[in-house]
């Protein structure tokens, strides 16, 4: 039976999550140098379009088809066979769509690692491989009945699937593709901070759909997830603000980065913890990611849009925090704090495997694509900027 309230909710949530993809594009586009602003936006659109098609062709089935050894789904839903207008609460097609926008967004986050230096053609190939070989299995493990689900790992809205995976994949990509020319010596200031903030605002907005929508209906759990999401974002924004203040001026990029850190960390937890638990989770996430960012800078890693620091490390922290703060009254499972240390261990195992798999598999895919067709533009193109070099367009002075 279709419930119109639930269906209305998930339809809109799906649209909201879709809007996060251009949100990521604006966010990253504002952070890079002006000569690559359009490129970052275009990569987000390309990622979303590619995954939209891949998902209905095979991705959905790989993630949500009948489980094969806990590793991957079967192909019975390929080309949306048997995915129809009926369903349990919400139409099956809608569940498919809701999952699709997650997959598209995740690939858009991964573009962080190759910002300002990727060839479009290689990104298209890499993106299709990555979403098929990395995202789809991870989604299956957590939500499609794979080993992590069987183990009882908790991931409400994608802490492992979306955030750890995109963060560590971006890091692997950044290592394979190498630093940008002049990294460390040349100035590489953000070109458009208001667009970073607007992109961040769209992310915050869309994240309500992302987390609350993961309840898959419009009920008290959705409301719990919604409230926890907002609180974590606010707490993350404020903790990062304070940390940056202590060290100097509190930049607006820090405020929105902190908010995103909080949002990432609450993602796996939103349907398992109380809203008040979102305060420590969000605040700590702000600090963890702020620290991770400095660690990254110190190590001279050019993963400079910080998908790793924010999504990767924030995702790890959130997945573990879920194992700490989960309480049966909300999501049916208790965490460490409520006397169930086993859950924390399960989360730890899940995190470890996902980190290893997403980093390792991405590294290999990237190496292969690089060997076959070259991931990176030429030096000349990089100097000129991808807007002109790849798209023949430019943001006017």
């Amino acid at each position, binding site marked *: 039976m279709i419930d119109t309230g639930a269906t209305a909710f998930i339809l809109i949530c799906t649209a909201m999550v879709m809007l996060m993809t251009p949100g990521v594009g604006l966010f990253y586009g504002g952070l890079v140098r002006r000569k690559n602003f359009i490129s970052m936006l275009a990569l987000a659109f390309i990622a979303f379009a590619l995954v939209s098609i891949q998902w209905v062709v095979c991705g959905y089935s790989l993630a949500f088809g009948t489980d094969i050894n806990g590793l991957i789904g079967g192909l019975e839903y390929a080309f949306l066979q048997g995915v129809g207008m009926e369903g349990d609460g919400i139409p099956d097609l809608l569940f498919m769509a809701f999952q699709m926008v997650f997959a598209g967004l995740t690939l858009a986050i991964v573009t962080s690692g190759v910002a300002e230096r990727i060839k479009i053609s290689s990104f298209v190939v890499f993106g299709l491989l990555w979403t098929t070989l990395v995202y789809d299995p991870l989604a299956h493990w957590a939500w499609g009945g794979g080993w992590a689900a069987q183990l009882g790992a908790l991931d409400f809205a994608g802490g492992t699937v979306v955030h750890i995976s995109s963060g560590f994949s971006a890091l692997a990509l950044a290592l394979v593709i190498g630093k940008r020319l*002049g990294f460390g010596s040349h*100035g590489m200031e953000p070109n458009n901070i208001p667009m970073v903030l607007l992109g961040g605002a769209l992310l915050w907005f869309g994240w309500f759909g992302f987390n609350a929508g993961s309840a898959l209906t419009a009920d008290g759990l959705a409301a719990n997830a919604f409230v926890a999401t907002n609180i974590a974002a606010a707490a993350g924004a404020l903790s990062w603000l304070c940390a940056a203040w202590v060290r100097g001026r509190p930049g607006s990029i820090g405020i929105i980065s902190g908010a995103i850190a909080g949002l990432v960390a609450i993602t796996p937890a939103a349907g398992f913890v109380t809203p008040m638990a979102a305060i420590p989770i969000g605040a700590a996430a702000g600090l963890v990611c702020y620290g991770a960012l400095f660690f990254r800078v110190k190590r001279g890693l050019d993963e400079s849009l910080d998908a790793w620091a924010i999504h990767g490390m924030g995702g790890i922290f959130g997945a573990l925090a879920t194992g700490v703060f989960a309480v049966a009254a909300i999501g049916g499972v208790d965490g460490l704090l409520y006397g169930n240390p086993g859950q924390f261990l399960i989360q730890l195992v899940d995190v470890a495997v996902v980190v290893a798999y997403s980093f390792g598999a991405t590294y290999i895919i990237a190496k292969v694509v690089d060997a076959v067709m070259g991931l990176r533009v030429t*030096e000349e193109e990089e100097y000129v900027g991808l807007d002109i*070099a790849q798209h023949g367009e430019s943001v006017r002075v």
Partner: protein
Amino acid sequence: MKMVTAVIRPEMFDSVRAALEADGIYGMTVSEVMGRGAQKGIALRFRGKVMPVELIPKVKIEMVVPAADVDKVVRIVLENCRTGRPGDGRIFVLPVESICRVRTGQIDQADP
């Protein structure tokens, strides 16, 4: 006094700024411009075709300095902005007849 105008790659700006400061050259006026070089921009190979890129973003730095400092400034810019690849930019030196600091109203005539 001379006006030294350097049109350089945007990414080089930070290091040249720091280097100038280290050598006591502080005053500058900076703007973002687009440039086309003697090579008609950089030729990009794209799907086998060579496509000239007409206008490329550059940074223009204008520094008014005593005539005696011109060589130093030029040297510093050269040291910090040269990659050896097309697009490195140009430095122009123009004569300045007088300069006035608005804050004080004090006017420096051109060097004798």
